[in-house]
């Protein structure tokens, strides 16, 4: 059995290289207008069998929410078979996402208060080589939406939309290199998977098995959803000034034996688990090494069992704990997800905030939202999935945790020879400005939705 990639949206299979993106949010109109919109749009959707490099702008994909599928008139009997987390929506699982009430990530504040998350019916993602091309594509989709009575949802009070941009190739706002560790997916069953390869069933619906279940599991709903996937669309603000200030004050305090600039870099690496060029701390704990910047050939259980190189709470050790022993409660093993994201907003140097909105427009894709997204965000919120956290099971991801979540600790433990150091009172560096759970339809669902 081999997946026909022509039936899968390319966004699922490929991390696009185009430097700019736009994300247009829409609410379908009454009646069949949503389907009419899709009927025109479907021929523009980039499928995974396309040759991407020579393809003209834009690369275009679409995700549809549970409410959007309902508004399109999808049979409720089919929808009831969908993933429980997808149906619940992000506001109902806000605790697992870390987006608690009365914090800056409170869902009541999402989308800058301009509309409710439940109003989002679809997101059209556009990727282009230039701003001009992105603008042309945006206008074209808007024209199509207007003709078909869709309402565009503008998520900012200043009237601007979400636009991603790589200012420096693969560099995120906190200065870390992105795009190093991705699952190696095996798209067929024709031969045994090589070590480290992941079954495509973790990322595509309609192929559920006992070993790799997904919902819909069987029947007409599974046929409808075949070659589709789920995704979590996240608008995450990053407070670069606060992050830089934190590094400049806490780095030298934590590592007084180093020059201040090196101490800052080491603290930044300890928080991520990699140096900002990508070098894994486990492989090179003293300094970045360009030879190792893209390395994924390491583990923790034997190479760093005590966290002396990479702290247990470092971001990459949480979201991909590799061979770390897991608690018995974690019956699913280590979840892997597909990340598709791009920074938005202009870069900032220094420790003074300029008031510009900047951060990450992220998409996290998988066939099982509970296992692949909900579980990982829960671990980010509270590091309590492995015996290695027994010293403090209330600790959070130092970069992405929301310190306002009840029952969590804002302390970051950095094990060191001769006694560990603890950073007390971690600030919030990131907060959520919007989230939507999406269904990225494959060819079967696209054809039915456009019918």
């Amino acid at each position, binding site marked *: 059995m081999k997946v026909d990639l022509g039936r899968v949206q390319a966004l699922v299979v490929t991390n696009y290289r185009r430097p700019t993106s736009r994300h247009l949010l829409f609410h379908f109109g009454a009646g069949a207008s949503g389907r009419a919109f899709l009927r025109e749009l479907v021929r523009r959707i980039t499928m995974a069998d396309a040759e991407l490099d020579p393809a003209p702008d834009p690369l275009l994909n679409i995700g549809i929410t549970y409410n959007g599928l309902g508004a399109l008139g999808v049979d409720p009997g089919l929808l009831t078979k969908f*993933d*429980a*987390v997808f149906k619940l929506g992000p506001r109902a699982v*806000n*605790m*697992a996402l870390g987006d*608690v*009430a009365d914090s800056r990530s409170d869902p009541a504040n999402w989308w800058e208060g301009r509309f409710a998350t439940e109003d989002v019916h679809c997101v059209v993602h556009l990727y282009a080589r230039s701003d001009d091309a992105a603008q042309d594509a945006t206008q074209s989709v808007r024209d199509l939406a207007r003709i078909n009575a869709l309402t565009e949802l503008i998520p900012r009070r200043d009237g601007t939309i979400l636009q991603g941009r790589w200012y420096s190739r693969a560099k995120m706002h906190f200065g870390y290199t992105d795009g190093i560790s991705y699952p190696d997916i095996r798209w067929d069953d024709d031969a045994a998977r090589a070590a480290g390869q992941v079954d495509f069933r973790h990322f595509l619906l309609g192929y*559920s098995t*006992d070993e790799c*279940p*997904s*919902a819909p*599991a069987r029947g007409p709903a599974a046929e409808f959803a075949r070659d589709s996937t789920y995704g979590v669309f996240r608008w995450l603000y990053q407070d670069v000034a606060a992050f830089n200030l934190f590094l400049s004050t806490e780095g030298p305090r934590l590592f007084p034996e180093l020059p201040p600039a090196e101490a800052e870099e080491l603290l930044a690496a300890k928080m991520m688990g990699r140096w900002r060029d990508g070098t894994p701390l486990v492989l090179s704990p003293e300094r970045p090494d360009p030879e190792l910047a893209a390395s994924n050939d390491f583990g923790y259980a034997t190479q760093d069992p005590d966290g002396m190189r990479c702290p247990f709470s470092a971001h990459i050790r949480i979201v991909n704990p590799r061979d770390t022993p897991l*608690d*018995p*409660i*974690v*019956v*699913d093993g280590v979840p892997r997800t597909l990340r598709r994201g791009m920074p938005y907003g202009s870069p900032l140097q220094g420790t003074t905030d300029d008031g510009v909105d900047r951060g990450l427009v992220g998409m996290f894709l998988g066939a*099982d939202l*509970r*296992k692949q997204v*909900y*579980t990982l965000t*829960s671990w980010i919120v509270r590091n*309590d999935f492995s015996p290695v956290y*027994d010293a403090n*099971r209330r600790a959070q991801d130092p970069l992405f945790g929301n310190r306002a*979540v*009840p*029952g969590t600790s804002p302390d970051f433990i950095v094990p060191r020879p001769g006694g560990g150091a603890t950073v007390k009172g971690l600030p919030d560096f990131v907060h959520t400005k919007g989230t939507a759970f999406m269904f990225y339809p494959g060819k079967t669902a696209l054809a039915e939705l456009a019918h």
Partner: protein
Amino acid sequence: MAMSLNFTAPLKQDPESQERLQQLAAVFTDQVQPVIDTALAKSELVHFARILVIDNKYIQVLTEFDGDPMGYTEFFRTELPSVFEHIFSLVEGAPPWKEIDNPNDFYEYTHSLNLKALGTAPDSGYDHGYMFSAFGDATVREIKGKFSPGN
């Protein structure tokens, strides 16, 4: 703060199902309890758990546990499949076990029968109703740690 599961389901009233209910009650201490004991001890996040039958008309699975309801439910399904298969076979309107023996459907079914307590949960963020705890938000691991040698 611990979470609660208040699974409450109507029991089939036909004679055969009622007879099987009595058989379950008869063997519960010797055959079911040890299995539940082993699994819940292994989880290290369940504070208390018990199963009740009310007038042979309803069955309840009541537990207080740490953490997230979805992960907890899946642990139950994978560690105690025979227990839940047996209980669900006695429940009126329950889907066949083979239909819900997967993470998604098992979660949806059990939580469709999870009763919310009166009131509101303080400081948990979850909407599962009021529950008093003398231990604040201390977890099972933390409480056990207080009683370990040296503490």
